[in-house]
Each structure stands twice: as structure tokens, then as C-alpha cells.
């Protein structure tokens, strides 16, 4: 292969004219480098420009500015049928008038492959997605999950360098979706093809991806491995969008190379030993971000740093965990406790109105800029 990167988007902008006649940037100066063999996800809420980015890679749209490279070659206005990428469409886009076999064979016929080879490769592709023996059916005679597999087989049979998937599991029920996530990931590892995967489901992205680009309003907010984006979110948007987080408004009192002291007006208290990140200065307004499962909750005051007195306002039992909502001096936080012990009344462990202590361990918190 010519390039280390399967796909590269270099400073790509895509502007659309809205029906009202205004110009809006669906994709706004996006730069992404996607490595060969990588499972790369674009994650973001509805309308953030994921599909548009994917369509520019596939060749259905052309960038207004910037350039898309595939295997190091600038794509310019290369039409889709001359790019070595294939797409699994969100709506599957199966040809209803053709059988499953004909659907999967279509791409090979377009390449001018010989009939015998087509037969062999279609058979292999259908085996791969576990649709052996379904080849004579029409798409309408398959379930949603099976249709999804046909769409996958139809794209994979072309042995593309890059497979583009636009929310391919969006229409499936939760259980099937979880199964397919693992299957897709296994398939990707087995084939060694680069997958570019679009989803708005953060859990899905975390489960499957090698790297995730978190997008919002046409811009990439953060790019990194699942662990990085979850444990070290770059800003409040990412911390909020991926998983849940408590945000405490505060102001930096003192700051050194390794740690900072932050005053939290809401708690009328100081948090000490906070980890620092680049660009923070003394006196700056920040958010102290901490995940619900990382807040330590106890009945007794054990230490005397970074600990606050609070009152339980609500508890919600959800099986594996209990969500405990607490309030300290009017500041609301959510705490998550695993139900490690089997008991019939797990809520009774923390009951509404109970007085508790919350510990915010410095290594579990992040200081995020207010923007």
C-alpha cells in the first residue's frame, strides 16, 4: 500500500444552501487521518455532519473546500464507482427486484468478473454473514437483521480497501444490535479491512472502535481511543456526550505544574490536588468534571480533604447499579453504585433524606475549560 493512511480528510468543508436560502457548513474544517486496518468511528448527535463526511469519502458529495485522500491519492471529483471504497447504507438500499444472490453479485458483475468466480465469491460472502442458503430469496422475505447482513455482504464481496458504514445497526433491536456489534468487530479484525463507522450511539462506538472522532456541529471535538475519549475528554461537550458526568463550576485558586486548587462556590469549599491540563491559568473559571461511578459515597467521614457533606434526594434501582441523586449546599450530583451484594431492598442502603459524605478523589476528576 502506498500510504500509511487508508483515508485522509484534510481541512474539509462542506457547505449546503438551506431551503431558506442561507449557507450552512455541515462539515466545518474537518481533518482526520484514518490508518489502514483501523476500526474508526465518527460519533455525534443528529445533524453533526457524520453522514455528510462519509458521503464525501464515498464520492456522493464533493467537498466545498479541502481534499479527501484515499490511499494517499487526492480524490477530487472522482465518481463513486472509481473509488476503492464501498458503503453499507443506513437504509440498506437493497435492490428489491433482485434476489439476495443477484444483489451480492451485482458489484462483481460490474467489475466484469467471470460467472464462476462470481458464484464462488458470492457464496463465500453469504457464508461469512451467515446467510447460507438464502440466496434465492428476495430482500422483502428477510428480517431486518438479515437484510442488514445482505447489505454487508454486497459491500464486502468487492473486497474494498475501506468499508463505510452509516449507522448500519440503527434499525435493529437492542439485543440484535449488540450481537451484530461484536460480529462486525470480529469480521473487521478477520478481514483486516479499514472500517469507517458512523453512529450516534456512544456505547456502540466505545464497544467497537480502535479510534473515535467525536463530532459536534460539523467540527471534530476530539479524536482518540475509546479509553482516551472517556477518561480524558478534551472538553465539556465530549465529557457530557460520552457517558455521564457531574460538572461543578469553580475557579482556580492556585496552580502549579502538576496540580491546582479549585474553589467551588456552590459547595463553599476547595478541591485540592486537582490534575492540571494545558492552558489553564490562575483565576480561570473551570468545570470540575467527575463521572458518577467515580464519586465515592460513604456514611462516615474518613478523610478530611475533598470531602463534602450531602443529602440523598432520590435513588433509582436499575438492576446492576443503583443511581443515587444527592444534593450538597444546593449543588446536585449523581452517584452510581454497583449492587455487589444481592439483597431484596437495595435502595435501603441509601435512603432518601439520608446524610452521606462524598469524596472527589483528585485522580478521578478533570478540570475543563469554560468556553
Amino acid at each position: 500500500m502506498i500510504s500509511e493512511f487508508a483515508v485522509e480528510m484534510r481541512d474539509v468543508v462542506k457547505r449546503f444552501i438551506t431551503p431558506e436560502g442561507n449557507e450552512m457548513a455541515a462539515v466545518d474544517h474537518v481533518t482526520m487521518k484514518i490508518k489502514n486496518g483501523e476500526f474508526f468511528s465518527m460519533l455525534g448527535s443528529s445533524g453533526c455532519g457524520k453522514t455528510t463526511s462519509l458521503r464525501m469519502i464515498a464520492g456522493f458529495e464533493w467537498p466545498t473546500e479541502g481534499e479527501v485522500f484515499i490511499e494517499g491519492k487526492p480524490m477530487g471529483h472522482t465518481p463513486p464507482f472509481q473509488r476503492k471504497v464501498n458503503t453499507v447504507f443506513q437504509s440498506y438500499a437493497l435492490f428489491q427486484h433482485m434476489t439476495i444472490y443477484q444483489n451480492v453479485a451485482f458489484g462483481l458483475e460490474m467489475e466484469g468478473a467471470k460467472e464462476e468466480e462470481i458464484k464462488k465469491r458470492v457464496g463465500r460472502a453469504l457464508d461469512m454473514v451467515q446467510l447460507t442458503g438464502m440466496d434465492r430469496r428476495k430482500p422483502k422475505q428477510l428480517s431486518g437483521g438479515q437484510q442488514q447482513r445482505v447489505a454487508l455482504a454486497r459491500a464486502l464481496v468487492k473486497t474494498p480497501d475501506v468499508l463505510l458504514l452509516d449507522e448500519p445497526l440503527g434499525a435493529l433491536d437492542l439485543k440484535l444490535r449488540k450481537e451484530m456489534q461484536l460480529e462486525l468487530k470480529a469480521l473487521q479484525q478477520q478481514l483486516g479491512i479499514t472500517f469507517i463507522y458512523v453512529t450516534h450511539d456512544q456505547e456502540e462506538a466505545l464497544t467497537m472502535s480502535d479510534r473515535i472522532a467525536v463530532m459536534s456541529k460539523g467540527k471534530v471535538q476530539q479524536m482518540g481511543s475509546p479509553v482516551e475519549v472517556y477518561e480524558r475528554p478534551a472538553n465539556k461537550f465530549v465529557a457530557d456526550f460520552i457517558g455521564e458526568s457531574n460538572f461543578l463550576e469553580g475557579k482556580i485558586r492556585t496552580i502549579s505544574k502538576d496540580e491546582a486548587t479549585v474553589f467551588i462556590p456552590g459547595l463553599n469549599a476547595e478541591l485540592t490536588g486537582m490534575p492540571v491540563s494545558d492552558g489553564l491559568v490562575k483565576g480561570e473559571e473551570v468545570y470540575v468534571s467527575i463521572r458518577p461511578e467515580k464519586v465515592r459515597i460513604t456514611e462516615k467521614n474518613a478523610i478530611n480533604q475533598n470531602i463534602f457533606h450531602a443529602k440523598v434526594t432520590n435513588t433509582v434501582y436499575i438492576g446492576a447499579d443503583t443511581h443515587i441523586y444527592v444534593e450538597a449546599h444546593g449543588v446536585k450530583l449523581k452517584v452510581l453504585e454497583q449492587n455487589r451484594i444481592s439483597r431484596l431492598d437495595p435502595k435501603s442502603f441509601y435512603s432518601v433524606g439520608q446524610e452521606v459524605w462524598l469524596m472527589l478523589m483528585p485522580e478521578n476528576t478533570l478540570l475543563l475549560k469554560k468556553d
Partner: protein
Amino acid sequence: MLQRLRESKSAQGTLLALPTTVWLFVLLIIPLILTLIVSFGKRSPDGDVIYTFTLDNYIRLSGYSTDCPDGQTACFDPLYVGILGRSMSLAFNTTFFVITLAYPLAYFIARAHPKQRNMYLFMVLIPLWTNFVIRVYAWMMLLRKEGAINIIIGWVMNLLNIPFTPLEMLYTPGAVLVGMVYEFLPFMILPIYTSLEKIDNSLYEAAADLGANAVKTFLRVTLPLSMPGVVAGTILVFIPVMGTFIVSDILGGRQVILVGNLIQRQFLDARDPTFGSAASLILMVLTLIVTYFYTRKFGFGEEIVAA
């Protein structure tokens, strides 16, 4: 009673089908039976129907004749068989040309910008607001020896210094064909448009994604998916064309007589409803046979109906 109705699915079905059954019976079955009875009758000298049972009318239609030259007792008179054949071939030709013209137009409209699409559809429909007969007369004005087409050609020829005698276009089979194609074009454009418009854009993208260029996409995806529209349009065009008489009357004159004209004249001019009825039934049977074989091969274009 009501209790029983609630429990019995078949009783419910009967009840629900009742209005349609009555409607069909009054408007279709009874007239058809009357036509059949009349067709077996005989014409009295003053133009009334004498109800008997004779196959004379059908024998006459088949071309068997006893009124022969050279003192023969029986011979073949090709008049009516010829008319039936001409009607049939005209219906085939009309349908063929209508499809050829309507498909590109429907394709163009379906792929146009949504804002312009409605305007184009509107333009297709406007002629239908004018009376059928008036529109055919308009063609007469165009095709006449002194008509617009001859004037324009004459004018161009004059500029090029080529001698030109006006073309005889009116009262020819060609004129009837042109009129028919014009009249029935919208009935083909609309169903084809509907089926083309229903094709999701992602299918075109999927085809391109899998390596198909524009031509292959059209042949492998667009065309097959729009076939239901073509089939529905064909049924909508072929059946009325088989029975029409106004176009051939005005643009064909005495030269181009179709089954429709034959039937019309039997009822109005010749005052022989018995022969007219026999001809109507033969026309119906022929149309049914063609439609039967056609729909057995292609279906009814049901996806259109279902949409």
C-alpha cells in the same frame, strides 16, 4: 342476528362485498347480458330488434358472405376482419410509440428538481382539461393541406429554394396514429413517473458505489424498478385505444375505419344494434385476450396500485 354477524367472518365478508356486488351487477353484468341477447337478434326492416337466436351477426363479422361475385354461393369478405386487424395493430403501434415518448419524459420529470417537478406534471395534465374532441380538431388544423405544419415546411423550403407541394397528411393512418399517441400520452407518463419517483435515491447511490456507471444503473436498476409503471400505463392506454372512434373519425375520415367506428355507425347510421352488439362483444373478447396474456407475463403493475 347482530351477535351472529359479529362472530361469523364469512357473513361479515359477504356484507362488506355487497355494495360492490350490486354495483357490478347493475352497471356491468346486466348491460353485458343485454348486449349478448341483442347480438343474437335480427334487425327488422325499420331498424328495430327482433329477438330470436341467430348467429348471423357473428358469421357476417367472420367474413363469411353469400353476396358474391361470379355466381359463387359462398366467399370470404375481408371487410370486418380487416377492420379488427387494423384496430389491433393501431392499438399496438400507439402503445409502442406512447411508451417510447412517455418514458424519457417521465424520467426527466422524476429526476427534475422538486420545485420544477410539479410544474412539469401540471403541464402534462393541462391538455386533459380541454375537451377531447376539441384537441383532436386542433390536430386537424395542424395536419390539413393548408395547415400549420405544411405552412411551416413550405416556408422553410421556400427559403432553401426547394420546390414543395403540400403534404397530404390528414385522413391517413399516420394522422390517426399521431392523434392517438397525443391523446394517450398523459396516461402513460403519469404511472411511469409515479414508479420512477418512488425509487429511492440511495439505490442509485448503491449502484454507483458497487461500480455501475450511468448506463448500467439505468438498465439494471431504474428500468426494472419502473416496469410496474410501464405495465400499468400500457393497460391504461391499450384498452381505450382498441375501442376509440373519435380520433379515427376526425383524423381518419372515411379512409381509416376502426372497430369503434364500425360499432358507432351500426348504432347511429345503419341502425342495426344487433350487428353493433356482436361487434362490441368481439372487441371486448379480443381486448380481454390480449390483456390476459399481457398481465400473465407482466402482472398488473400492482406495485403502483399498492402505493
